[in-house]
């Protein structure tokens, strides 16, 4: 049974967001956060599934912590989590992503990825993707990357007459688009681009 996707925009830190996915259900979640954020997803029913995509763009000169948990508590469950982050100057993001596969959760498949684009000289990312796997009949992958805006991409756009500032913006947009464009509301999308533009 498929559920419609849920959309979250977090602009002020609040309580932890918890989701429980029961048997044969699917959770689709897309989030955008400019501040600290806690997300807990537990797959309690067999054959349940959670697909989460998120974008974290902290307000400049802040120090935020984003925590996510993907917990598999039953058999043949699947979860995917992609969190992208754009970190401006003077800002620190700490990302802690846990995938925990319990002893009884055989046949589970978990994927977690954190990609960060560092925008300034004093941008700081700390990422800790954690795996705790207590069952062997599972497939589990996680990955993390942290990179600046690639100089060769900037040069390429400049060689096509585009100013550095604009090229910068284009590349950042390209990076975040696959998350932003998942939000159905154009107004929401616009406000997100605005937030980015400001940094």
């Amino acid at each position, binding site marked *: 049974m498929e559920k419609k996707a849920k959309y979250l925009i977090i602009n002020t830190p609040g309580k932890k967001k918890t989701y429980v996915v029961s048997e044969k259900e699917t959770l689709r979640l897309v989030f955008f956060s400019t501040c600290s954020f806690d997300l807990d997803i537990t797959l309690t029913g067999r054959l349940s599934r959670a697909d989460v995509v998120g974008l974290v763009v902290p307000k400049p000169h802040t120090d935020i912590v984003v925590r996510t948990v993907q917990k598999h508590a039953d058999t043949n469950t699947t979860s995917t989590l992609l969190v992208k982050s754009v970190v401006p100057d003077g800002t620190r993001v700490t990302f802690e992503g846990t995938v925990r596969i319990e002893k009884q959760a055989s046949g589970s498949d978990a994927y977690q990825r954190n990609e960060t684009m560092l925008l300034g000289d004093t941008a*700081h990312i700390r990422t800790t993707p954690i795996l705790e796997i207590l069952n062997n009949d599972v497939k589990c992958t996680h990955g993390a990357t*942290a990179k600046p805006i690639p100089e060769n991409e900037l040069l390429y756009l400049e060689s096509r007459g585009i100013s550095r500032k604009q090229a910068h913006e284009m590349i950042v947009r390209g990076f975040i688009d696959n998350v932003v464009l998942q939000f159905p509301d154009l107004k929401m999308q616009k406000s997100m681009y605005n937030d980015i533009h400001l940094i």
Partner: protein
Amino acid sequence: MDTLSLPSPSYAFGFHSADVHAYKSKKGLSQAIVEDIAFQKQEPSWMRMFRLRSFDVFMKKSMPGWGPSLSKLTFNDFYYYLKPIESQAATWEKLPKDIKETYDKIGIPEMEKKFLSGVSAQYESEVVYKSVQKTLTKKGVIFLDMDSAVHKYPELVRKYFGTVIPPGDNKFAALNSSVWSGGSFIYVPKGVKVELPLQAYFRINAAHMGQFERTLIIADEGSFVHYAEGCTAPIYSTDSLHSAVVEVIVKKGARVRYTTVQNWSTNVYNLVTKRAWVEEEGTMEWVDGNLGSKLTMKYPSMYLVGRKARGQVLSIAYAGAGQIQDAGAKAVHVASETTSEIISKSICRSGGRTSYRGLVKMLHGAKDAKSRVVCDALIIDDLSRSDTYPTMDIQENSGSMEHEATVSKISDEQLLYLTSRGIRGGEAQSMIANGFIEPIVKELPLEYAVELNRLIGLQMQGSVG
């Protein structure tokens, strides 16, 4: 070339000679024992003071607040010093008979004859036998046990000892700094390349024996050395403690490779601090094989402090029943254009637990630094557990960092493929497990590679009914 005599499925190195020691310290640890150790070794006062200061730090420092539980470790249950004979034997022939027998069983004579440059073999807390080939001394390479180095090369030792890993670094570094005994000291002069691996063997013998060797390697500018060590220990019903400290200094343009294959019997706590300080265009390579012990906590580290310094950690961990391998790596990028690569492969079965714990840190100013971490874990059965706890702390926006980890079991498809070629299930599992660790095994010296493949093979086949 003779191959190392290979172990049978049950632990073949679980033997010990009747305790032959010229001197045995009392059990437990106290300032008096630390003084005693310095006195027995007739150490200069600067080393004695270093030990005493370290002992103070040890007493004050608390146990690590993370990682596997060390609650069963009671420091007063161990002996901290043993001295088998009065002085070192200069040649193989002069070694006491029962010690020779011990090493015969491990296979040192063949090794020595065939292709090593020199062997420092450690028995209990002190190096009993050493042999340094003429070519080494001619090149100006210093390779001897740490105790002798303190006496023979005091300025050199004093300059570097404790600079990479100060006693205050962690409780076990402080412990080692106060009671250390044995270990190797290596100095390679500028431009000298030592082609053959330098090797050492260790053993823990007496009940409750602690092993606290201290190794210091200094590779001067443009030099190269490969140091290899493999450990075995006999089986006892009470726990043994192995807490070594290894400091490596890689100067400009030099390269050091440090290979360890650890196969302690499964009653040993193996808590090691290993760190390298890598200067401009220097290269450090840690190759680490953790097969034995009850609990190993080991995170080879490199501080990349000079421009274009490179560090690499290749790590294999195997955890069987009742074993915890908590291993990993640490890379700190201080200077620009530095690179680090960490590849970790672990296998666990029969209730064993493997954990990867790592840190990649890029400090502000480490421009264009690059790091890549790959850690893969194979969980063979549903009794076992695998965890990864990596942290990437990036404060510099010019370079790149990538980390990837995968956890899975032996693929059914691969098993089907091999069995469909007539290969029996157990052997098929061995082949896949050995194939899994192959990228690292091929970096080990041949005799280690052979033994390792064989051990994994035996362990894997034991798991199929």
